[in-house]
């Protein structure tokens, strides 16, 4: 435990890195994922095709491969990103595909009468999506979206393999410590992850009950 106290600064920095990585990637995923979902239900066929292609590709690519391309592949064509930027982009682009699927299932869950009514009063596609369908869709997909984001926080650990010094990377970095010390670090890392995921799960649960629509 003394060892943990001595290295508290290291643990704290790693915790903040994981937190900011998750927040930035989450924001990117939420925005991009919503746009992709809108594209997938849009009246323009090529847009639908493009969004479907994006989602299918990213859902079938291991996140490690996405990271690999971002960190080792892109420099080969002279796009050089920092390690942290690369991690945010990889995690965000990957998660966006899953956000898109969650939001789209929400759009499908909004009853057809809502969309028909908004068309009948003359709203355009964009208006009916923005003003009528999406606000209801988001309320129904709070639990699955929450799951996606909790999974994303856990997935952020993969950045450890690509030179981002976040929580998981502490284990290989402090590998020279003795048995008790390294076990303490492991415990600290596990608790630190739970400090993010448990409040997130709790918040999602509260939000779900708060915004639920009774049908």
């Amino acid at each position, binding site marked *: 435990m003394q060892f943990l106290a001595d290295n508290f600064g290291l643990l704290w920095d790693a915790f903040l890195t994981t937190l900011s990585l998750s927040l930035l990637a989450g924001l990117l995923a939420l925005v991009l994922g919503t746009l992709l979902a809108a594209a997938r239900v*849009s*009246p*323009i*066929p*090529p*847009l*639908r095709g493009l969004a479907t292609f994006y989602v*299918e590709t990213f*859902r*079938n*690519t*291991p*996140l*490690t*491969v996405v990271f*690999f*391309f971002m960190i*080792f*592949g892109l420099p*080969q*064509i*002279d796009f050089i990103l920092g390690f942290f930027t690369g991690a945010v982009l990889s995690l965000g682009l*990957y998660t966006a595909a*899953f956000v898109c699927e969650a939001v789209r299932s929400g759009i499908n869950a909004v009853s*057809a009468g809502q*969309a028909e009514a908004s*068309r009948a009063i003359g709203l355009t*596609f964009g208006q*009916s*999506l923005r003003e009528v*369908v999406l606000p209801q869709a988001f309320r129904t997909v709070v639990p699955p979206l929450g*799951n*996606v984001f*909790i*999974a994303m926080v*856990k*997935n952020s*650990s*993969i950045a450890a*393999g690509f030179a981002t010094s976040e*929580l*998981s990377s502490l*284990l*290989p970095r402090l*590998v020279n410590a*003795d*048995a008790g010390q*390294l*076990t303490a670090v*492991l415990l600290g*890392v*596990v608790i630190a*992850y*739970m400090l993010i*995921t*448990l409040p*997130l*799960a*709790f918040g999602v*649960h509260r939000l779900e009950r708060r915004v639920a629509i009774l049908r």
Partner: protein
Amino acid sequence: MTTPVLFDVPGPKAKARIRIGTVIGALLILGLIALVLTRLAGNGQLDGQRWAVLFDARTGVPQTLGRTLVNTLEVAAVGMVVATLLGLLLAVGRLSEHAAVRWLAGLYIEFFRAIPLLVVIFALYFVLPKYGIRPSAFQALAGGLILYNSAVLAEIFRAGILSIDKGQREAALGLGMRKSQVMTLVLLPQATRRMLPVLIAQLVVLLKDSSLGFIIGYFELLRGARSLVEFFTPRFGSEYTFQLYVAAGLIYIVINVLLSQVAKYIEERTRRSAKAAAVKDVALPADAPMGDSSTASTT
């Protein structure tokens, strides 16, 4: 998409607008592709001879890629089999009538679903050696995949077992079967059939996760490509780097797409067959196809 509810069927004007938009969009995308291609060509990355190395047996590249592919599939196969069996045991344990067994299985499942898979692998690979057990990269990777996925699979099996009409269980008990017989002869066969699509989706996730071996130095596809690059670079500079990375990435993607197609096919077949018609009503544990879809809490 059958009849769109979100927009009217486009009339002539809207159709013209869409067509113009399509052309502009296509031009933009083509421009983007052209930009990437010129970048690549500018660096000479598109030379046929650079790509030929991937298929030239004399360089050892196809052999290495093939061997690493086998390594990837090997660890995934071991993980799939053991995790499925362990998941079954855990699911049965969590539904047990003995409180202690129920509690232990629940603790295991919730714990391993709450922490990142990579942390489990790191714990096996970096922390265990301190206690005198030295797992190889293969063992650490397979162990991590098994510990984590058995917890997720257990929840899938449990949802499947709980979704079987309780009359089945009561009828089987009424016939005088023992509890173990009810489980193995009546409940599990039906549950497995019902959960097959989700089960396979999770096994695809397991295959995807086997790429984590890259991080601890297991000789899987990405690591293979990386080591080839490290071998070539002092001799030829970074001439073949990009090609090798693309090849490794593409193999991964193709295998995953193929397996996903199998999963989709089985899902459609299951949905059609009347015996598993109730599959839609089952509350799945999170959405299994997601990378690591589990929640820390399912309160």
